[in-house]
């Protein structure tokens, strides 16, 4: 009988949820109780809402256990390993047991995430064992020409997964056409969209797939050097990439005359970003790699002709590159089977916000947003009402519930005013105020604007001021129109994508939630009860115990009442600071 494998998901999310402690516990148990198991590590398994996750593979098959802590792991190991009796109530995914979580996995097609959760990312042998580095070997073995590789990527219909949606094959073709003694390929791993974590999971879970994608790209465009520009906020991803690079060098996948291809010399190094959202833009990223302030410059010349150190440079996103080896290995036709006419293949989405199952999903393009949120995501937390979904982060927009049947492909999402972006989907319910969301994103872009273009630098600031005023009950007639006017001016007069898209969150919320703006401006009401200054605080006489905590903490002393008697808030003196609401232990402060 084979030794059962016990695999713990140790991605950033898992570790934050306590997976490392679970791993240590298993290791201790293995030693103390002499358990006959093979303990292994993997990275993000995708079901983040069930972290920490522990998979047990025995002679019957695979069982994935969710919500495992240091206590439960004792029970699971004892029953499953010692008594051969899987603990059904904690199983979230298995070939042998049906679970309520099956709908999360059924419709997923894993191409970019093909190895995430299956391999130990720190072991190159495990990547090779699942078909890794076979694509570059195929290219070397069959002597595929550079143009063949590019044609294959073109045929697959793969478009840039960082958000732009530019055909990857075309990008490679341009870079290939520009002849030079030095050329670069850069992997953009500066995942700055707050609320998206696809690239982090791929880098942590399957770093070799990204490296192989880069090596294939380097071959196709004749690149001599590779750079991975990764956020410094992702220390685990950087650590695993460094390990992967060392291993790939040792095995001859990088270096000189790679796999016997004469004259194919290529190596990769990592450049850590230093925290600037604008560095996701190609020319700003290049400036940052060169050690300067990350400010975009005018195009043309495009990086394909003059990029890093003024040499032809090709920049691809993490997910795009992770798809490449699969496409070469399985052929463009297989990839084209998935998706819609103009958006082929699959897309990884990071589900977050007020959704029951938040995590990482990979679905074929063309699935409806409704299916992603309700079928895979399990619907809205606490069974509240679905209000909207935010796609594309600060450059994207908010899609309202009534457009939930929109399918996910580049063109359909663009038509709503949002963008596909890198794949963040933040779900919002009835308790989310749309003006607050718009303000949140404007605050972000306003801080992140590099300051080069006047409209982006000052315009976003003015927009933020107007939005702040609206949320504080100082909104005026004409504010909506002014926001729209500023939006179009910023879009028209900014050099780079940051400015050109910064007003999108405001424009889409005005388009779909104009009544909410009007309620704030005209009636001085926040329907979602979020904007503090627009709320009325009252004491519920049924619940008030007269503990006096609210009165003691009130900064304006506007709460009156004797000990053990119902208190009362004098509205005319209330400054709506919310202190009483957060201090009350009896939920006796009512908001309206």
């Amino acid at each position, binding site marked *: 009988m084979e030794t059962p494998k016990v695999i713990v998901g140790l991605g*950033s999310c898992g570790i934050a*949820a306590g997976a490392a402690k679970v791993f240590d516990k298993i290791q201790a148990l293995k030693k103390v109780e002499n358990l006959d198991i093979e303990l292994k590590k993997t990275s993000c398994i995708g079901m983040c809402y069930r972290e920490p996750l522990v998979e047990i593979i025995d002679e019957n098959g695979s069982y994935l256990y969710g919500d495992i802590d240091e206590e439960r792991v004792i029970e699971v190991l004892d029953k499953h390993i010692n008594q051969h009796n899987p603990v059904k109530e904690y199983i979230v995914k298995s070939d042998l047991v049906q679970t309520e979580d099956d709908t999360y996995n059924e419709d997923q097609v894993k191409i970019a995430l093909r190895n995430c959760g299956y391999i130990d990312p720190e072991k190159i042998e495990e990547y090779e064992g699942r078909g890794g580095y076979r694509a570059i070997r195929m290219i070397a073995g069959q002597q595929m020409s550079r143009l063949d590789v590019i044609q294959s990527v073109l045929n697959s219909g793969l478009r840039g997964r960082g958000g732009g949606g530019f055909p990857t094959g075309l990008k490679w073709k341009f870079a290939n056409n520009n002849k030079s003694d030095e050329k670069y390929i850069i992997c953009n791993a500066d995942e700055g969209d707050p609320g998206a974590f696809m690239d982090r999971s791929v880098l942590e879970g399957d770093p070799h797939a990204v490296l192989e994608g880069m090596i294939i790209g380097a071959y196709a465009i004749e690149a001599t050097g590779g750079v991975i520009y990764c956020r410094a906020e992702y220390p685990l991803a950087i650590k695993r990439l460094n390990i992967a690079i060392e291993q790939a060098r040792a095995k001859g996948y990088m270096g000189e005359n790679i796999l016997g291809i004469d004259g194919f010399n290529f190596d990769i190094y990592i*450049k850590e970003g230093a925290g600037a959202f604008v560095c996701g833009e190609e020319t700003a990223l290049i400036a940052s790699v060169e050690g300067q302030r990350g400010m975009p410059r005018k195009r043309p010349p495009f990086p394909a002709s003059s990029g890093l150190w003024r040499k032809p440079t090709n920049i691809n996103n993490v997910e795009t590159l992770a798809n490449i080896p699969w496409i070469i290995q399985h052929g463009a036709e297989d990839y084209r089977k998935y998706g819609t006419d103009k958006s082929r293949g699959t897309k990884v989405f990071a589900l977050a916000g007020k959704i029951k199952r938040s995590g990482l999903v990979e679905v074929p393009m063309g699935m409806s947003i409704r299916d992603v949120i309700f079928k895979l995501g399990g619907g809205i937390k606490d069974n509240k009402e679905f209000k909207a979904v935010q796609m594309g982060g600060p450059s994207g927009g908010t899609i309202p519930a009534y457009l939930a049947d929109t399918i996910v492909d580049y063109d359909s999402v663009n038509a709503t005013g949002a963008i596909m972006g890198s794949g963040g989907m933040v779900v919002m319910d009835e308790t989310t105020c749309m003006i607050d969301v718009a303000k949140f994103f404007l605050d972000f872009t306003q801080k992140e*604007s590099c300051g080069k273009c006047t409209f982006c630098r000052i315009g976003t600031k003015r927009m933020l001021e107007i939005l702040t005023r609206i949320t504080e009950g100082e909104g005026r007639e004409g504010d909506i129109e002014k926001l729209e006017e500023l939006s179009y001016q910023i879009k028209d007069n900014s050099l780079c994508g940051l400015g050109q898209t910064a007003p999108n969150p405001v424009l889409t919320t005005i388009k779909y939630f104009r009544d909410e703006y009007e309620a704030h401006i005209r009636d001085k009401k926040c329907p979602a009860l979020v904007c503090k200054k627009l709320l009325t605080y009252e004491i519920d006489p049924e619940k008030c115990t007269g503990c006096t905590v609210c009165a003691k903490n009130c900064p304006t002393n506007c709460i009156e009442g004797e000990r053990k008697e119902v208190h009362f808030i004098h509205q005319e003196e209330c400054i709506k600071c919310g202190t009483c609401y957060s201090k009350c232990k009896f939920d006796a402060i009512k908001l309206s």
Partner: protein
Amino acid sequence: MRIARISKKQEVVQDAEVDLSLLDELIEKYKSKKGNLIPLLQGTQDIFGYIPRGAFEKISKETGLKLSEIYGVATFYAQFRLNPVGKYIVKVCHGTACHVQNANEVTEALEEALKVKDGETTEDGLFTLESVACLGCCSLAPVMMIGDETYGKLDGKQAVKIVKNIRIKENN
């Protein structure tokens, strides 16, 4: 505006306690290669926890880069700090997922408990409170990170309790 980061009032810090010779090895490693200013500054910050004025001057002198250029880069990127920080940096995530799940409450509660504003350090030098864009643990929102430890599914009260426990441990 990134410019807002510069216009903040800088505290006058005595650099006398800072041992600038710690930088020698770092400067030696990076000075001959092009485009290495950012790793050089990152390394400096790793050593001192921030970038002291003296370090700017030393780097400028030994690499030949203009002081204005180095200062320009250091103030452009959110990662770099020009003031000393507390022993523990409390990073409260304000990504989209955390924001819609009330990350503001966490920051406000911590501001009140630690008696500092966002970006400031407590008087005893123990904690620096920071808002960060996204820690990438969106499924656990709202999240904060202290050192290497990440805490998820927080509310204001829990966050304050965690910080208080650290303080109790430190004072013992």
